[in-house]
């Protein structure tokens, strides 16, 4: 009841000065609008840039690394079990790159609850022959369906269809740069030579463009079976298993575990791409600090307007106190005024911010390196809207708090006797 009365008084004071109120609210609206737009745009951009790499990167990659064997013969010799071994001129082990027992590992991964999915991969170094030119390239054997599901492979296939890799035997998808060099189009046949000198004719079923030119200039994809055939290897020969987890944060721990269990090398995405995290977090930090600065400036606007209002309303405050409103009541009235400016301005700001982001989302943005992007990227994360409204509440509360405290300290005797 008392609260209702105070709110009622606050509302009347507000409406009596609606122009000033509007100016204050517009300040908040503007800053919240910019806050939302800035964060949505910035984080959309972040997602885009991260996605450029992270979407295509497995969370964990299982493979056999080329490195020196940890178990050198001297370790096994019974006479030299104690002491420290100094061994010189160790060479990396030339053991085979294929994953041992790959079928069993894949069975186990299928049952692992943390694993969203995985796709086997093998890589071959090949030469693409065009007349008397040999272009060094890399050919990855993939399962196009799994690869599309987990790593958005099909998004980067700009012409042709990734699924044709399995449907059409001896088929290949070329990087855009590579296809340009070879002057081939979909339906044409390219000749590849393996490092062992064997030649194959492969039919082009698609062109892909990843956005990273160096990559597009050398990379090509074929089905796992095709690459096994080119390398003259059996059908269990694969050199890597790419795993995607449900929770990317678990990757380092799970990678360590697999390393132990399967006696294999496992690399997690955090180790492989640590620089992306840093870039994203700094961009986010900058957008937040700009947004919050805007809000604080709006807060000063509210502070000024309330201060003026209190000077104008000295008499009203004095009589309210004389007729039984306590200092606390008066303080609450002014805080209600400030907060309602904040909430109202903030809500309108959220709407305008959404509108502005949606507008930016419609602006065409074409760049050859990002084939899947047609307009500016926007992230409509509800989190930004929550933070926006909470911050507009907090800043206006504090902007109102100081003038309100001043109002509550007004001595009615001084005002009334001064007349």
């Amino acid at each position, binding site marked *: 009841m008392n609260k209702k*009365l105070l709110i009622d008084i606050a509302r*009347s004071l507000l409406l009596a000065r609606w122009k000033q109120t509007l100016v204050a609210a517009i300040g908040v609206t503007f800053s919240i609008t910019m806050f939302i737009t800035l964060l949505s745009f910035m984080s959309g951009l972040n997602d885009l840039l991260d996605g450029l790499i992270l979407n295509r990167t497995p969370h964990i990659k299982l493979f056999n690394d080329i490195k020196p064997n940890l178990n050198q013969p001297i370790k096994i010799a019974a006479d030299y079990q104690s002491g420290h071994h100094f061994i010189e001129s160790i060479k990396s082990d030339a053991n085979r790159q294929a994953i041992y027992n790959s079928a069993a590992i894949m069975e186990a991964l299928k049952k692992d609850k943390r694993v969203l999915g995985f796709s086997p991969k093998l890589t071959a170094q090949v030469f693409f022959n065009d007349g008397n030119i040999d272009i060094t390239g890399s050919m990855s054997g993939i399962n196009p369906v799994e690869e599309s599901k987990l790593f958005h492979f099909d998004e980067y296939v700009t012409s042709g269809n990734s699924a044709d890799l399995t449907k059409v035997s001896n088929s290949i998808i070329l990087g855009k740069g590579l296809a340009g060099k070879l002057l081939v189009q979909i339906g044409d046949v390219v000749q590849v030579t393996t490092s062992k000198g064997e030649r194959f004719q492969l039919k082009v079923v698609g062109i892909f463009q990843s956005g990273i030119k160096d990559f597009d200039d050398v990379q090509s994809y074929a089905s796992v079976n095709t690459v096994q055939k080119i390398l003259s290897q059996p059908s269990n020969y694969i050199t890597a298993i790419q795993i995607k987890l449900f929770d990317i944060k678990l990757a380092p721990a799970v990678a360590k575990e697999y390393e132990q269990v399967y006696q294999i090398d496992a690399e997690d995405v955090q180790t492989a791409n640590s620089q992306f995290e840093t870039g994203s977090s700094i961009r986010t930090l900058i957008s937040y600090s700009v947004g919050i600065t805007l809000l604080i400036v709006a807060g000063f606007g509210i502070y000024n307007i309330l201060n003026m209002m209190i000077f104008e309303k000295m008499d009203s405050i004095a*009589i*309210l106190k004389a007729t*039984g409103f306590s200092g606390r009541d008066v303080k609450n009235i002014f805080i209600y005024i400030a907060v309602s400016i904040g909430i109202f301005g903030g809500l309108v700001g959220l709407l305008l911010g959404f509108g502005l982001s949606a507008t930016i989302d419609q602006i065409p943005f074409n760049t050859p390196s990002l084939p899947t992007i047609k307009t500016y990227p926007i992230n409509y994360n509800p989190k930004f809207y929550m933070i926006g409204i909470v911050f507009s509440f907090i800043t206006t509360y504090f902007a109102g708090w100081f003038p309100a405290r001043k109002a509550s300290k007004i001595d009615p*005797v001084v005002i009334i006797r001064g007349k």
Partner: protein
Amino acid sequence: MSNTILEAKHINKYFHDPIRVQVLSDINFSINKGEFVSLTGKSGCGKSTLLYLLSTMDTDYDGQILIDQEEMPKKEEAYLAKIRNEKIGFVFQFHYLLNEFNVLKNVMLPGLKLNKYSNEEVEHRAMEKLRILGIEQLALKKANHISGGEKQRVAIARALINDPHIIMGDEPTGNLDKKNSDMVFDIFSRLSDELQQTLLIVTHDPSFAERTHRTIHMEDGRIL
């Protein structure tokens, strides 16, 4: 049996700024229920200062003030505000109406703050007070759209809304012409006669003081 409404015991007050000056010295008096008392004296004799001490708005004094036989604490601002709301009605020289509200709402505000009656009842009571003062036709007008004499009557209605133990006035006729002063005085004496309302009015108008039940005369911070 005691029907003392207001009592002042050994009140001393000093102004500290710029130098320490004693403005009130050893004030003792009491007002009984139903009395119509005027407090007079020359400018600067301390009569308004005394009134603001009695009103609980100024708590910087030595001595005791008892309202309704209860001693007023000096520190508890919120409690004193409640006392003012419930037991004291004020009429000042200036009307202090809130221009944001209409006349009726101005009268209702202290009643709504008291929160003893429902909204409708407070409104009904406010209309009644306005009727007593003969200004019920102004109820829905904005406070800044009525004349000076009418404003002062609205202020009196506002003072009456919570049926206070005592109405305190600080030169309530000081800003009004003869006709309106007489009218305000008539209202006060009617309240005193018909409703046994206790009143303590500070004035320097001798003709006003003459017509009250009792006059407390002050000079140089003392009661004569």
